[in-house]
């Protein structure tokens, strides 16, 4: 991993706010898109991202500077999303309604109906059927457009693992998308 991030994390651990600010600026956009992809709700995503960073800051004493920062915030934010879904589930249980993600209002109207449907379907399957690690890697690759080498660096995995997980993701998607393709 880069020495820069190691140093930043070490400084954050020692309550250095400037270092925390730098990490925040570096990862906020990526984490926001990561969360919004799952939630389809920008306001809620903003809250969860903020909560994630706040938790890191409040627990800074226990940070391990050697661990990849994105892995940590991806994990925390995912847990916060689960908490949210669990809460929603309780709210809707009596109405016998499965909480469905709201229709994203950022769909591109120019695109053909069919394409949008396919993309929505991919979106749904990624969120509902991909295992955690697989999902994080797939989002970073496809939605963030990162190359395998960079994903490996961000998550502290081998490039091989990243490729295997992506392949696995595509296999699962293919299985679920049989009706569309």
């Amino acid at each position: 991993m880069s020495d820069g991030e190691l140093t930043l994390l070490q400084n954050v651990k020692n309550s250095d706010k400037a270092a925390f600010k730098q990490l925040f600026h570096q990862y906020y956009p990526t984490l926001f898109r990561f969360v919004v992809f799952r939630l389809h709700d920008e306001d809620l995503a903003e809250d969860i991202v903020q909560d994630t960073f706040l938790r890191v800051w409040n627990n800074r004493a226990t940070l391990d500077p050697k661990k990849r920062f994105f892995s940590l915030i991806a994990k925390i934010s995912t847990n916060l999303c689960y908490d949210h879904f669990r809460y929603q589930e309780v709210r809707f249980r009596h109405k016998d309604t499965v909480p469905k993600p709201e229709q994203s209002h950022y769909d591109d109207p120019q695109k053909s109906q069919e394409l949008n449907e396919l993309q929505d379907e991919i979106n749904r399957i990624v969120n509902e059927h991909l295992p955690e690690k697989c999902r994080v890697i797939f989002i970073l690759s496809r939605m963030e457009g990162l190359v395998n080498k960079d994903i490996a660096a961000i998550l502290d995995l081998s490039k091989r693992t990243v490729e295997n997980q992506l392949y696995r993701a595509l296999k699962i998607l293919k299985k679920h998308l049989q009706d569309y393709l």
Partner: protein
Amino acid sequence: MKHFENKLDRIMQRIWEESAKIRLPETPDTNDAWMRMEQLMDIQEAESIQKAAVEPKAFSPFIKPKLVWAVAAALALTFISPIVYNAYTTTSIVAERAQIKNVTLADGSTVKINAESELFYKKGFGKNHRNVILSGEAYFDVEKGDIPFIVEFGSASVEVLGTEFNIHTRGTDINVSVLEGIVKVSGTEDKQDIVLTAGQKVNFIQGFNPGTPEKIDHKKYPGWIYNRLILDQTNLRAVCKEIERKFNVKIEFASVDLGNITVTGIIEADEFNPVMETLATLAQRSFKFEKDTYIIY
């Protein structure tokens, strides 16, 4: 990447390409987000200072049990893994180049950590032990206590009960100087321990035993905590290393033996350029700046 894509069948290729087209909304302004974040942090900090007046000590044993529970609960909610355990058992405080860090330890002792130096201590500091490990240089003001305060650095260590002293350990050179109280300095053999009293210092090297104590001749000593360089027959190589760490610059010698020139004097080290000029005068040399390096010739 290309290699990976070539392995995919037609349907997978299609999914691969389509998934990259999924639109995500614009990201909110990061600066605004940070401002809100900072407000939240300030509010929480104010609250936690009220709860425990020991910020920002990492897991100090003196933090009230209630707060420890709160932290533990927050952790349980977020992530629990072996990572946490390691980070929890050792704390490290680093001062980078061109940086000096002041820390207050759990026992109330204060440490001023010089540039490019690091201090470590294990869980239970102040409660079960007062052992720290130092690399680089630091000035200690140790609170009196029943547990001995021990600083380890390479093959040597210093043991005290309560006092003020400086430890300088760069490369293999060690210098321990005592400003107040008494400290015991140990090298590699127990029998060769020496005792330093206020106003004394000792120089020795890693892997050896400390030699005979000497008198500290200067009032503002050690120089670095008063932002000055105190040179006493010090070779240019060591002085330049110190300047490199303090100002985060690169200094080289036009020829290797220039590093052996010794200089004596006191340099006020608030700003880089005057320091270099004074040093050049003392050493009767000149210096120039090329690319990113200062060259003494």
